């Protein structure tokens, strides 16, 4: 690549190929884990990660945890494989079924299609956090009461999706509930139970209790 061409590329994208290669550490003898590199893009400092493992910090269920992962690793895989937080499941791996749902920065996300590095700095909530001491969260209790689970594999994701839904809309109508559940698949066919559970949890919410 000529210097002239290089220069024009740099002007277009703000990142030169050379600086990218350098920053990404593609050379012999790289250490297994490296921190991010900082490059200058249009006068701003931008963190550049990968392709080798890099150290990131995630705030999971209120606790800061540091993991070393390649930047391509999803939030789901980081939690399941690196931190042994296995409530969220890997099912479709294509953001279709919702079994991997977590709440990140207040929003329900399919964690199979969120990169772990993207989730830095945002609170991440998983099903493991819902228990209040020995007691089930009222939403979990509502699932139990209405038999909103059978095989249980979609359940952790479904519970988190329902929680995010209720956090946003504490007093939904039955129609809103039905729509709100559209992002999670259950093959056992527990939708009727889940619907009833969400309505029950919503009713309790209306009673003025604070369910976090």
């Amino acid at each position, binding site marked *: 690549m000529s210097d002239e061409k290089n220069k024009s590329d740099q002007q277009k994208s703000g990142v030169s190929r050379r600086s990218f290669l350098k920053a990404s550490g593609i050379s012999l003898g790289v250490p297994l884990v490296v921190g991010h590199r900082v490059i200058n893009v249009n006068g701003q400092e931008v963190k550049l990660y990968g392709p080798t493992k890099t150290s990131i910090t995630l705030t999971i269920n209120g606790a800061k945890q540091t993991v070393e992962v390649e930047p391509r690793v999803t939030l789901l895989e980081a939690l399941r494989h690196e931190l042994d937080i296995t409530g*969220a499941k890997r099912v479709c791996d294509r953001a279709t079924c919702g079994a991997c749902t977590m709440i990140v920065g207040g929003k329900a996300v399919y964690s199979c299609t969120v990169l772990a590095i993207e989730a830095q700095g945002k609170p991440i909530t998983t*099903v493991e956090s819902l228990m209040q001491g020995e007691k089930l969260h009222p939403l*979990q209790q509502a699932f*139990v009461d209405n038999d909103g689970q*059978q095989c249980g594999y979609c359940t*952790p994701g479904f519970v988190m999706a329902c929680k995010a839904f209720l956090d946003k809309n504490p007093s939904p109508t039955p129609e809103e509930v039905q729509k709100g559940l559209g992002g999670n698949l259950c093959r056992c066919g527990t939708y009727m*139970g889940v619907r009833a559970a969400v309505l029950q949890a919503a009713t309790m919410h209306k009673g003025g209790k604070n369910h976090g």
Partner: protein
Amino acid sequence: MAVGKNILRKDGYEKLTGAARYVDDVTLEGMLYGKTIRSRIARGRIKSIAYDAAFDWSQIVIADYRDIPGKNYVALIEDDQPLLAENEIRHYAEPILLIAAANKDLLEAAAHHIHIEYEQWSPVLSIEDALACREIIYGTDNIFKRFLIGRGDVEEGFAQAERIIEGEYRVPHQEQLYIEPQGMIAIPGNEAMTLMGSMQCPYYIHKAIKQLFHLNDEQVVVIQMTTGGGFGGKEEYPSVIAAHAALLAHKAQRPVKLIYDRAEDIAATPKRHPGVIRHRTGVRRDGRMVASEIDLVFDGGAYVTLTPVVLSRGVIHALGPYACDNVRIQARAIATNTPPNGAFRGFGAPQVAFAYEMQMEKIAAELGMDSLELRRINMLREGDTTATGQTLIWSVGSEEVLNEAVERANYQAQRLAFSQSHSSIQTSTTNHVEAHKRRGIGLSFFLHGAGFTGSGEAKMKAQAGIEIMANGHPRVLSGSTEIGQGTRTIFSQIVAEELSLDFSAVEIEEPDTSRVPDSGPTVASRTCMVVGRVVQMAAREVKAKLLHFVAERFAAPEVELREGKFMVAEKALADFQEMACEYVNLFGELRCFAHYASPPEIEWNEETYSGDAYPVYSWGAEVAEVEVDMDTYEVTVVRLTTAQDIGRAIHPLLAAGQIEGGTLQAVGYGLLEELVWDQGRIINNRLTNYIIPTALDAPDMETIIVEKAYPHGPFGAKGVGELPINGAAPAIAAAVFQATGAFLSEIPITPERLQAAIEKVTTDEHR
């Protein structure tokens, strides 16, 4: 009282908190990850396998068929399916090699450095191709199995008939789509192998592994982990995955975890058998069936696996819940070069149910008769005789379910209202807005034989037991698995009821072949009715032993067990727990096992395929109300009302959950689910393109449980798991027929298929 109550599900808490550990949630020290290398052709032969020299293979474990210590087959019915292909390839995604590595990235990299070359042969990819015998891929005629059943004189019946009505019905593959993909961990030992994973039938795996590794009963241990759904899909196939994992573990001498991703799971594992079913029915003008000839063909795929048993259930259910004196039913299962089809909830019955119910609609239409009336004229009632010559002697809730469903759905009034609104639309053809959406209501009526077919249960002699633990509480020992359907909960209720204890006192042992007896597979709607009965008998034996013990100890002859206490008249002697502990301390243990024995009234002739095909049937009726968008041809199911006679609901909420869940899978079968094939390869093997019902597709459902007690079931219970999957597809098709005038003889009723059918009606009318 524990039975009949909606107690809290035993496995609910751990599933809701994320604490339940499924196979992919577990990592063992030193564990490798395994992967299956599969064929990329449907039929042919392996010419060569090459490993890139540039790749570092020292970190990869590779196994092929030569590494199998025993014979290269998966033990099932015919032993024709190799664990790993040796030379010939019979279907796309057939396992050829296994690889394992310490991490998944390395594993995936290695897979890209293996190159298999094939010689391709012309594959057989459809029922028509197989029957035409252009290529012979099995036996001399591509036929895996045939059945012929019948009674009376069919020719004579047709001679008496005033009308003869013919219909041909087509049903597709259906993917079980358990949400947890298949997975297994194999742990090698010294002359031993332990398997743990997702499964319905630990003893199937036990049998397969013993054969493959020359190990005995004790050397192989199979443990079921929390299992994320099965629906039949984890009946036979986990044996293949377990054997693959075990082979790698055996070679590596390290634990190996083999988890399928969704794409591999859909591409390679068994589906519901597709089929073509032809009906020829002779009826009198009043609607009475006088002759029925049925020909059914199921596509078994590339290997026999469970196909003969699926076909057997199909042929026996082919006439449905109807009586006819002159019947001949021919059934054939054929071979194709597609992945073997296998167990899926319903097991041959949903296919034939779509056909027999659509045939009823067709007969009614041709006779100008109400199809409900036609069903009432021909339905089986207590004392009637089925196609196999079985006289129904007990627990026949046919009339009750039909009446309940029809009444609760307000079927007749709605049907009349919709039909009047349609004729008014036809008279004012210019009103497009009114014609834009059409409503219809349809009915289906069906039955399901509970437990194994024919002499299956008599041969199986299912075992289960109860042992008293050190704390004096009972523990159930059974190989029946919890797959979400509620095994653990209902077993604890049955035992609690028999021993007059609180259900929370009953513990259920993990299904582990070293600790529980073989209760038979967790299939065929048999867990409650058959194994539940055995559990009940074992509990009764425990009770008898303790009553005897207490009577001697207190020198009180008339001891009773009530509310957890041993009583003489109104005087409490001691409580259950105390006496049970004392018994165990004194005699070392208290364990009672029971075997299943078929009711003495039941007789089945395996040679003539006649007699009592099942000890009892569960009955169902379903009403579907649909709305059809006449611009997009989308069908929306507005409401489903279903009434099901299951003998007794041990746990009404769980039973309703089974009915709703099965019904929803049948909505998928009838409207949405279709595999797309290209030269034997499934091209929509993802959840993004294989569409299953979401919460938005789930209509309002009303479920009515009818309880016509079965005297040989626990507290009168019959099977419930499979019955509900028979009803929705034909009920929806009947409703679409009313709404649009288009008679769909093939499912799923996709917009494309419906458009073609409606256009055909319009063309025919204008001719």
